[in-house]
């Protein structure tokens, strides 16, 4: 675990490197110019939100299947992952809207991809509302995990199916029909570094939240024993 935490310190190098590569090293796109540089943040952030939701779903499956973990339940870890995913989804919407304003002239126009992301946001808002309504910890873990699994199985429909079924102004996704990335080599490398950096950032934040949870539990235990 210590080795993983030391590895996660790479984020202090990877994130500045991504910023430098995105703004100084990668060339601007032919038509969009410097505005295209938002790609190196928008795509990795969107990827991290998807990753975080999938991780929260997998942790929920493990929680319901009875896997026990020391220092904090898997349901709480799933909650943390969903919270990170939710934050990154909001950031995806913000960066996407800025990009939409530059290339389409409006911040929002209910494009199928925009519609999908709003539905995903609503699903996770519903999850947090449900968690808030459940007072018993054990019940919260079980029912919250069930909802997260339901949310995870509907994700492919919104992320992959809807944007491909309906005509969209959104540029071809990275995982497109031809399975090729149509980018200059410098741009491609910058994007890959961006995706890796943001993935490490996700792991870093996830680890940090789980460590805070452990500390909080230890404080609670200490209070209980001292009373």
């Amino acid at each position, binding site marked *: 675990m210590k080795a993983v935490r030391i590895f996660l310190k790479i984020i202090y190098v990877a994130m500045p490197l991504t910023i430098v590569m995105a703004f100084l090293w990668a060339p601007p796109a032919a038509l969009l110019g410097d505005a295209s540089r938002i790609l190196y943040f928008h795509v990795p952030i969107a990827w991290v939100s998807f990753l975080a939701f999938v991780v929260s779903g997998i942790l929920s499956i493990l929680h319901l299947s009875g896997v026990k973990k020391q220092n904090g339940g898997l349901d709480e870890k799933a909650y943390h992952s969903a919270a990170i995913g939710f934050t990154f989804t909001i950031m995806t919407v913000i960066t996407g809207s800025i990009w939409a304003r530059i290339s389409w002239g409006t911040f929002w126009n209910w494009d199928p991809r925009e519609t999908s992301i709003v539905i995903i946001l609503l699903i996770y808002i519903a999850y947090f509302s*449900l968690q808030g*309504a459940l007072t018993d910890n054990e019940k919260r873990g079980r*029912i919250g*995990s*069930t909802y997260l*699994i339901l949310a995870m*199985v*509907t994700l492919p429909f919104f992320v992959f199916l809807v944007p491909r079924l309906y005509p969209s102004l959104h540029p071809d996704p990275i995982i497109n029909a031809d399975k090729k990335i149509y980018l200059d080599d410098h741009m491609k490398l910058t994007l890959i570094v961006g995706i890796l950096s943001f993935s490490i950032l996700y792991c870093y934040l996830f680890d940090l939240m789980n460590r805070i949870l452990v500390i909080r539990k230890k404080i609670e235990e200490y209070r209980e024993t001292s009373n």
Partner: protein
Amino acid sequence: MVRDIIRNLRKDFRVEFRSRFALNVSIAFAVITTTALSLAAGGVPFSPRVQSMLLWLIIFFSAMNGLSHIFVREEDQGTSLFLRITASADSIFASKLIYNLAFMAIVLCVVTPLFMFFMQVTVRDAVYFAGSVAGGGLSIAASTTIMAAMVAKAGGKGSLFTIISFPVLLPVLWLSILSTASSIESAGHADYGTLIFLLAFSGFITAISFLLFRYVWQD
């Protein structure tokens, strides 16, 4: 298991039709909103898309008023513990699902003709229209059964059922609105792919719900 399902269904129908609380609330809501809309419109006809949107909004909120009742009632009356002891989670889920499907069918049978009468809806493709309404209603009932169980465990708090069901039901509502509008607008352009999708979505959500229900139900 079949015997358990039939026994639970018989009990649920008896208890519900003794008071008819959920059904009365759902139908009263549908009648009030439809007449209010018609009154506000003052005889001005809406476009097929708007008619379809309004019909599905009324169906959705009418359903939301009653579909959670089947589980919330068990928790309120303290009978859920007895039910947990006497029947398996699978048979309870199956019976509650069938009950919700029947409940939805009754709501649809009341709401749809009422809406068509008050909002002056002329349907061009009746078979496609009936298929769209039935397919959408079936999907709503199938998808919300497990949500109802979750809300009941959370104490059946206010509008929580609508909040947690709405995002999962959005694709169903979206496609139902499109197919219903298409059936009102023009004959001979039926897209049965949409109906197949609605059935597939219901089947998929029902299968996942069936697998997950025991974790929600058992304490």
